[in-house]
């Protein structure tokens, strides 16, 4: 709490010298660095010449009092008060000296020769107090020398306050909005703590700024305590914000780190209250020093960690922190060693940059979220396309299976009818005939033949297309009994043969008819003892050979017409050779379709 004042004086224009003097007078300022002071401290009155600036808290640490400074200068204001602020009589008033004062001196007040300016201050023990050197001179000159600092000093506070309110509001809204997607999940809505720290930091700064100036409505120690607590909270939340951005708020130390702002604020409150209540001037100073040290120590470490960051946010925050650290050091120099308290607080400026950091964080997150959502949309589109293709393939397979099932169901239905109807009837008829005549008569033989053909038809239904071996094997299975009844000894030489894919159901049936006819001929006409059935591949053909050792026939004169017709329909080569020692029938089928 600094009370300083400087007085600015206007050179009276009326008494301006001609040209040169006027210019000189218009640009020159007077700096009064000595004054006669009457100081009342603790019921003691001191009167002496002092140099300006006069730092009360350094000359009379821990004491309050009053002082009057009188300085003489050539152009003077005489006895007429030109400005007054505050209450010289009572303690705990407003801080009126927080900024420099530019006090215009009315023309009529100055007179030629000796003038005297008188400045009275009230100093309270727990505050900074004193008087800086007085700067006198023409308006423009004074402004040129000190105007900027004055303006900044005057206006920085309100601007900082507005900026912090804005950033704080932004941070609060960002925090209140739940993390995208978390509302859909079961359980509590998730909020991003990063924005909470930012809001808390800005709120602490707002409190600090409000508690620096104004009329304390509460006891001074509480006011001071809250002010310093806000400083501590601001530092603590700033650290949390920086750590959260760096992603280093995990692990075992997390609960301690989260409590940092509270601890810092509590310590600040204690120092502030103690300073105000007990007059421990240096306690507040020590708190500031410690807080500054923490920032100064943290900033380089954070900058070092940020070197590996992928985004711009962390390095930017590191830069802000380092600026803060530098500003803190600059302010130390100013406060503890500087002459003039009219300095702009650089820490205040640099701390406002945190708001900038928040904006950058938000922008960067928006950008990455946009990129991510575009990527997700592309992935989703691709996945959907894949699934659709899978689905289409599945449907095709299902269709194929359904068709096959329909075919199988149809086949089963037909078989059921044949089984229960025709087949059972034929079997019953055969049985009844045999009951009367145990040896197979002509009718019985015909019926058996009919039943066998029915069974062979059923076999073809189940056969794989082109499975000639299966056809031959099935034929043997069905006819074996009859062959042994006739006394034929069967020799079986069937190799493992490939399936002839070009043969469809009709071709299979035709082949079966040819084979059945051939074997039937042997059974009925050949009067043979042995029957050879062989099948194998020769060159590009599958050859089936049926040979018996029966009577034979004159193959030049008798041509089995149906056999030849079937062979032509099948596209097979039929060779029949017959003589008195037996007959050979060979059917040659191409392995591949033409």
């Amino acid at each position: 709490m600094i009370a300083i004042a400087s007085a600015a004086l206007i050179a009276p224009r009326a008494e301006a010298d001609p040209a040169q003097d006027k210019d000189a007078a218009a640009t020159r300022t007077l700096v009064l660095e000595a004054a006669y002071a009457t100081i009342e401290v603790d019921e003691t009155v001191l009167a002496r010449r002092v140099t300006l600036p006069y730092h009360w808290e350094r000359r009379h640490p821990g004491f309050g009092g009053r002082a009057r400074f009188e300085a003489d200068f050539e152009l003077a204001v005489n006895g007429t008060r030109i400005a007054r602020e505050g209450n010289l009589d009572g303690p705990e008033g407003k801080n009126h000296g927080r900024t420099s004062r530019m006090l215009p001196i009315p023309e009529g007040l100055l007179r030629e020769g000796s003038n005297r300016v008188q400045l009275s201050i009230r100093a309270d023990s727990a505050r900074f107090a004193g008087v800086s050197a007085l700067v006198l001179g023409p308006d423009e000159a004074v402004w040129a020398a000190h105007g900027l600092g004055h303006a900044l000093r005057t206006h920085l506070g309100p601007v900082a306050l507005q900026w912090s309110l804005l950033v704080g509001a932004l941070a609060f809204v960002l925090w209140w909005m739940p993390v995208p997607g978390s509302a859909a999940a079961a359980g509590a809505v998730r909020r991003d703590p990063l924005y909470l720290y930012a809001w808390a930091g800005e709120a602490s700064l707002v409190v600090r700024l409000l508690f620096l100036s104004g009329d304390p409505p509460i006891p001074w120690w509480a006011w001071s305590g809250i002010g310093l607590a806000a400083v501590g909270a601001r530092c603590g939340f700033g650290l949390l914000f920086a750590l959260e951005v760096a992603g280093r708020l995990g692990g075992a130390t997390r609960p301690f780190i989260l409590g940092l702002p509270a601890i810092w604020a509590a310590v600040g409150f204690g120092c502030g209250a103690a300073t105000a209540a007990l007059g421990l001037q240096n306690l507040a100073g020590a708190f500031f020093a410690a807080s500054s040290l923490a920032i100064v120590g943290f900033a380089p470490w954070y900058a070092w960690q940020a070197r590996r960051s992928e985004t711009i946010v962390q390095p930017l925050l590191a830069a802000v922190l380092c600026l803060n650290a530098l500003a803190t050091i600059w302010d130390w120099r100013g406060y503890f060693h500087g002459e003039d308290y009219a300095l702009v607080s650089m820490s205040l400026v640099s701390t406002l940059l945190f708001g900038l950091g928040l904006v950058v964080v938000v922008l960067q997150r928006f950008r990455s979220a946009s990129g991510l959502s575009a990527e997700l949309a592309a992935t989703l589109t691709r996945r959907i396309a894949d699934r659709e293709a899978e689905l289409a393939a599945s449907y095709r397979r299902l269709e194929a299976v359904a068709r096959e099932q329909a075919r199988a169901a149809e086949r089963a239905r037909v078989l059921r009818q044949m089984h229960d109807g025709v087949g059972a009837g034929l079997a019953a008829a055969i049985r009844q005939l045999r009951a009367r005549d145990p040896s197979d008569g002509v009718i019985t033989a015909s019926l058996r033949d009919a039943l066998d053909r029915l069974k062979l038809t059923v076999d073809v239904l189940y056969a794989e297309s082109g499975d000639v071996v299966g056809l031959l094997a099935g034929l043997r299975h069905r006819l074996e009994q009859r062959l042994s009844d006739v006394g034929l000894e069967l020799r079986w030489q069937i190799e493992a043969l490939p399936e002839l894919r070009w043969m469809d159901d009709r071709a299979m049936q035709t082949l079966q008819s040819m084979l059945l006819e051939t074997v039937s001929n042997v059974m009925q006409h050949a009067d043979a003892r042995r029957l050879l059935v062989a099948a194998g591949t020769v060159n590009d053909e599958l050859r089936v050979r049926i040979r018996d050792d029966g009577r034979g026939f004159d193959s030049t004169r008798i041509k089995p017409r149906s056999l030849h017709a079937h062979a032509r329909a099948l596209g097979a080569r039929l060779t029949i050779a017959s003589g008195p020692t037996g007959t050979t029938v060979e059917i040659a089928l191409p392995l591949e379709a033409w």
Partner: protein
Amino acid sequence: MDVPRPWAVLVVEDHDDTRAFLAHSIETTPGLVLAGQVTTRAAALAWLRDVESPLDVILVDLGLPDGSGLDVIACASAIRPDCETIVVSVFGDESTVIAAIEAGAVGYLHKDRTADEIAEAVITVKSGGSPISPAMARRLLARMRPTGAPSETPRALLSRRETEVLEWLARGYSYAEVAARLEVSLHTVQAHVKSLYGKLAVHSKNAAVFEAMRRGILSGPAR
């Protein structure tokens, strides 16, 4: 010397003529005795559950008026493990017979056989022989041998010998011819086929799943 007890046979057939014929075949064969004859599925199940007398063979027609003979076969496998089931069929077509074997049957008979042939078939089956048609052998090979589909288990269900026997049978060779080629006894070949039937019954459910996967109806484990 011990006179072996004649084998008791239950006949399940709804067609009167056929049933009478089967019963007659059993009764006129020494070594076989008719334990009972029923005409419906319900009656067959009741007989299996309630009648205490011993049973060695069941002859079952699959087409019963109140249901499928497959249920009778399954019930017999469950509660009368010493009993052999033979399915009676007109054609002996492979689908019918395989379904019966999956349910637990050990063989099949053609209805149009003579009485002697029927009795002989029953005795053959009871003595360990398991008739198999070439078509059935082919079907069994396709079903139980690994086909190289991506999601099937590498372990083959058939032993090498069993596969060999099936391959010869599928080509139409008789049991005797197969025994001669493999240089084993006829009984050994029959035993191989019988053990095949047992595996088929046990693994029929697995095979159905495998078949479905092969056709792509079921998909394999999620990627």
